[in-house]
C-alpha cells in the first residue's frame, strides 16, 4: 500500500470537501468560496497528474471498501478512468471560473456551487469506479446532484424541466439498477476488466446475459441521450449556461457514454460483445441518433437548443466508435469523448457570453456580433469548425478515426453516416458563423448588459478562449503522446492486447 493507492480517494475527496465547506459558508462569503472552488480544482488536477504518472508506469492505484458481504466499493485508476477524470477535472476548473463570472451578483451562489462541486465529485466517482456497483452509486449521485442545478433558476420552466430530467434519468437509473442487480445475482461482484468471468456467464446463460446487456445499455443510454431517450437534454437547457456546459460537455451525457464504454469493454469485453452480435444494434441506433440529432438541431432557432441537439448527435459518435469492432474505431470513440467535451464546452461558454453580454438567445439575433464580440466569436467559430470536423480542430481527428474504424470493421456504410452528419453540422453551424461574421448588425442588441468593454467580461471570456485553444491543440498535436489521441491509443492498446 504505497501512497499512490490513496490517490483516487483523494481525487474524490477534494471536491466532496469543497462541496461540504461551501454548503456551510454563508451566502456573502464570495471571495472565500471562489478561492475554495478554484483551489480544489487545481489540487485535483495536480492529483490527476500524479495518477497519470502512476498509470503510465502500469500500476493502477486502487481503494477498496467492503460495503456488504461480497460487495466492494472499488475506486481504481486505470487508463480509461484517467481519460475521463482528466477531462472532467480540467473542464471543471474552467467551468468553475466561468460560473464565478456568470453568477456574479446573482442569488443562491452557495447552494449552486455546493451542488456544482458535488456534481463534479460524482463525475470523478464515475470515472474512477472499479466495478459496476460503484459506478451505479456515483451514477445516481450524479442525477441527484445535477437536479438542483437544473432547477436553480426556480421559475416554473426550470421546475418543469427538472421534473422531465428526473423522470428520464431516474427511470433510466432504475433500469440500470435492474441490469446491474441481475448481473450480480448471476455472477457476483464483477470488477471492471474481469471479462473472463463474464465470458463464462455468457457461456452458461447466453440469452439472459443478452437481456442484461440490453438493460444496462438502455439504462445508460438515457443519460447518453441516445435516440428514444434524448428528450431531457434539450429541456434541461433552461439551466444557467455553466450548467449546460457541464451537463452537456462533461458530467451527465459523458457519464452515460462512459458507462457504455465500461460495459462494452470492461464487463463484456469487445470481442465477446462482437461475437454475440451486441455491437451492431448499437451502431445502428447510434447512427440514427447522429442523423436525427443533427436534423433536429437544424430546425432550432434557439442557440442553446441547437447546441443541445448537436450534443445529442455528437455523443452518439462515441457510441458509434465503441460499436465499431477494431482498435481504430475504439480510438475514435474514446478520443471523441474528450474532443466533444472540449468543443461543446467552448460552444456553450460562447452561447452564455452572448446571452450575458448582449442578451442574445436566438440565432437571428447574432447578426454582426463578430464585430462587437470578436474573441467570443472566434472561440465559437473554432468550436463550430470542430463540430463540423474540419482540421486542425479536434473534431476532425475523431471523425477520421471513426471512419477508419468503420472501414476496418467492414461497416462502410458508417462513412456515409459520418458524411451526412458532417453535412448537417455544416448546414446548421455555417449559417450561424455567416451571421456572426458577415451579416451587418440589425438594430440594437436585445439586452446589452456590458457596454463598457469590447467583449464579454474576462472571467467569461478567458475560459471560452482557453477551451477553444485546447480543442485546437488537441487536434493540432494529436500525435504527441499526452494528447487525447495518444492516451486513447494507449488505452486501446491495452484493451486489445488483453
Amino acid at each position, binding site marked *: 500500500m504505497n501512497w499512490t493507492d490513496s490517490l483516487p480517494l483523494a481525487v474524490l475527496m477534494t471536491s466532496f470537501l469543497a462541496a461540504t465547506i461551501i454548503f456551510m459558508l454563508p451566502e456573502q462569503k464570495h471571495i472565500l468560496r471562489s478561492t475554495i472552488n478554484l483551489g480544489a480544482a487545481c489540487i485535483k488536477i495536480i492529483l490527476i497528474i500524479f495518477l497519470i504518472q502512476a498509470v503510465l508506469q502500469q500500476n493502477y492505484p486502487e481503494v477498496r471498501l467492503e460495503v456488504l458481504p461480497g460487495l466492494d466499493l472499488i475506486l481504481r485508476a486505470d487508463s480509461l478512468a484517467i481519460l475521463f477524470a482528466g477531462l472532467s477535472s480540467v473542464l471543471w476548473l474552467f467551468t468553475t471560473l466561468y460560473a464565478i463570472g456568470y453568477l456574479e451578483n446573482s442569488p443562491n451562489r452557495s*447552494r449552486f456551487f455546493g451542488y456544482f462541486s458535488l456534481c463534479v465529485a460524482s463525475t470523478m466517482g464515475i470515472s474512477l469506479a472499479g466495478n459496476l456497483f460503484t459506478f451505479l452509486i456515483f451514477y445516481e449521485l450524479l442525477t441527484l446532484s445535477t437536479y438542483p442545478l437544473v432547477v436553480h433558476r426556480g421559475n416554473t420552466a426550470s421546475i418543469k424541466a427538472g421534473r422531465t430530467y428526473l423522470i428520464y434519468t431516474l427511470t433510466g437509473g432504475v433500469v440500470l439498477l435492474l441490469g446491474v442487480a441481475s448481473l450480480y445475482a448471476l455472477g457476483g461482484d464483477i470488477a471492471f476488466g474481469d471479462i473472463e468471468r463474464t465470458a463464462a456467464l455468457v457461456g452458461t446463460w447466453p440469452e439472459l446475459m443478452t437481456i442484461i446487456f440490453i438493460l444496462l445499455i438502455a439504462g445508460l443510454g438515457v443519460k447518453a441521450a441516445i435516440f428514444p431517450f434524448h428528450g431531457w437534454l434539450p429541456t434541461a437547457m433552461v439551466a444557467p449556461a455553466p450548467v449546460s456546459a457541464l451537463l452537456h460537455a462533461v458530467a451527465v451525457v459523458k457519464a452515460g457514454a462512459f458507462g457504455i464504454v465500461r460495459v462494452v469493454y470492461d464487463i463484456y469485453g469487445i470481442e465477446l460483445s462482437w461475437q454475440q452480435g451486441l455491437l451492431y444494434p448499437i451502431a445502428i441506433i447510434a447512427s440514427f441518433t447522429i442523423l436525427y440529432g443533427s436534423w433536429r438541431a437544424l430546425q432550432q432557432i434557439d442557440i442553446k437548443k441547437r447546441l443541445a441537439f448537436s450534443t445529442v448527435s455528437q455523443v452518439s459518435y462515441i457510441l458509434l466508435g465503441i460499436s465499431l469492432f477494431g482498435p481504430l474505431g475504439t480510438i475514435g470513440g474514446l478520443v471523441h469523448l474528450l474532443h466533444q467535451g472540449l468543443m461543446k464546452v467552448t460552444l456553450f461558454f460562447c452561447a452564455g457570453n452572448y446571452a450575458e453580454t448582449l442578451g442574445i438567445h436566438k440565432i437571428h439575433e447574432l447578426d454582426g456580433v463578430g464585430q462587437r464580440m470578436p474573441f467570443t466569436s472566434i472561440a465559437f467559430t473554432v468550436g463550430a469548425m470542430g463540430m463540423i470536423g474540419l482540421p486542425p480542430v479536434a473534431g476532425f481527428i475523431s471523425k477520421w478515426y471513426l471512419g477508419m474504424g468503420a472501414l476496418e470493421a467492414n461497416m462502410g456504410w458508417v462513412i456515409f453516416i459520418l458524411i451526412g452528419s458532417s453535412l448537417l453540422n455544416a448546414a446548421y453551424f455555417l449559417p450561424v458563423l455567416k451571421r456572426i461574421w458577415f451579416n451587418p448588425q440589425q438594430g440594437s442588441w436585445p439586452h446589452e448588459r456590458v457596454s463598457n468593454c469590447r467583449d464579454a467580461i474576462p472571467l467569461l471570456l478567458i475560459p471560452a478562449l482557453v477551451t477553444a485553444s485546447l480543442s485546437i491543440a488537441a487536434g493540432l498535436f494529436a500525435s504527441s503522446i499526452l494528447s487525447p489521441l495518444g492516451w486513447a491509443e494507449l488505452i486501446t492498446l491495452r484493451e486489445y492486447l488483453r
Partner: protein
Amino acid sequence: MNMILSPIPWLLVIPLAGAVLTMLIPLNWRSPASMFGLLTQLLASLLLGYQVSQYGTQIYAMADWQAPLGIALRADGLATLFILMSSLVATACALYAHLYLNLTKRGHFWPLLWFLWASLNGIWLAADTFNLYVGLELLTFAAVGLVAFASDERSLEASIRYLYAALLGSMAYLLGVALLYGAQGTLAMDSLAETWHWGPTNQVAITLILGGLLLKTAVFPMHTWLPPAHGGALTPVSALLSALVIKASFYILLRFWVEFEVYRHLPSLSQLLGVLGAGAIIWGGWMALKQTHLKMVVAYSTVAQIGYISLMFPLLTAENSEASLMAYHGGILMLLAHAFAKAGMFLAAGNLIYCTGKPDLASLAGMSRYRPLNIFAFGLAGVSLMGLPPSGGFNAKWLLLQSSFLSGQWWWIVVLLIGSLLSAAYIFRVFAYTYQETEATDSFRRPPITIELIALCLSVASILLGFLSIWPVNVVSLPGPFMEAMP
C-alpha cells in the same frame, strides 16, 4: 456476570429511574438530568455492543430471578443492533427536543421520553413473550402520551385513535401469548422454540399474535391510525414514533417469525405478508404523493417504508438459505436506514415548518434559498428513503433485489422498483416546492443552527450507512438462537 459489569440492567434501570426522577424534580433541572441520562445510555449501549461483538450473546436475569417469573434479558446481535439504533436516534431526538422545547415551554416531555426509552430497551432485550407484552403496553402508553402532548385537537384525535388501535393489538397479542402458554406451558422464547409443535392452538395463537403486531406496526390495510398520529405530533415525537416505536412491534414479529420458524410452516402466510407490504409500498407512496402537508407526506412515506421492510418475510424462505440471509440483512438494513433517515427527515421537516410557520407544502417556496443546509439534510434523508445510492436504503434495496433474484421471486423486484420511483416522485415533489421562487416572502423565522445540524447528522448517518453497512450486517449475523433458527 454481575450487575455492575454488565450494561444490560443499566439499559433498563436508568431510563426508568430517569422517568421517575424527571417527573419529580422541578422543570428547569429536568433537561440537565436527562442530558446526563442520555450520556449513560449511549455509554451503556456502546459497551453492550462491544461485549456482544466480543463474547457473543449475553443472557442476564434481573436480580438473579430465573424465568418464568423473573425477568430474563437476552442481548443477541439483533437486540444489540436495535439497542444501539434506539440510543443513537433517541439521543438525537432528545437533544433536538431539548432545544426545540425550550423554544416552546413544555417540560413534561422528559418523563414520557424516558418511559418510551425504557420500554423500547425492554422489548429489544426481552427473552420471554410476556415481558414483550408489558414492554408493548408501556410503549403504547408513552407513545400515546407523547402524541397527545401537542394537545391540539388534531393530535388529540390522533392519539385516541392510536390508543385504541394499539390496545386492540396488544390484546390480541396477549391472547395469543396466553394460548401459547396454554399449549406449551412456558413463556420463554427459547424454551417455546424448543418445544414448538404445530397444533391448532399454536396456529390460532400465532395468528392472533401476528394480527396484533401487524396492527401495531401499521402494515398496509391497518395503517390508517399512523399518518395522523405521526403527522400530528410534535416534531421530535414524530421522529421518535416513526423511527423507533413502530419498529418495536416489528421486531417482535420478526423474532416470532424466525425463532418459531413460522416461515417454514406457513409459506402462504409469508407471501400474504409480502402482498401486504407491496400494497403498503404502492398505497403509501401514492397517498404521500397526494398530501398537501409536509409532515403528512413524511408520515405516509413511513407507511410505504414499512411495506419495504415487510418484503423480507416472503423472501425468508426455507428453500434458499443464501437468499433468506440476504433478505434478513436487507430487511434489517432497511429498518436501520429508515430509522435514521426518517428521524432526520422529520426533524428537517419540523425545521422547515418552524421557518415558514405554515405546515403546508406550498409555503415552502424559496426555502432552499433561505435554508440550504436544512434542505440538504432533508434531501439526504430523502436519498436514503428513495433507495438511491449511496445510502443505507440503497444497500438494503440492493440486498432485497438480490435475494428476490436468487429465490426466483421476480414479482418483488417489480414492486421494489416501482416503489422507489414512487418515493422519488413524492420526495422530489417536496423539493420542487422548495425551489420555487414565487413572491419573496422573507417573513421566515430563523431556527438555531444547532437543530439543523442535528437533523443533518441523522441524515448523514443514513447516508454513511451506505458505506458502512458491513458493520450492522456483521452484528446481526452474530451467532445465537436467532441465527440458528434462520434457514
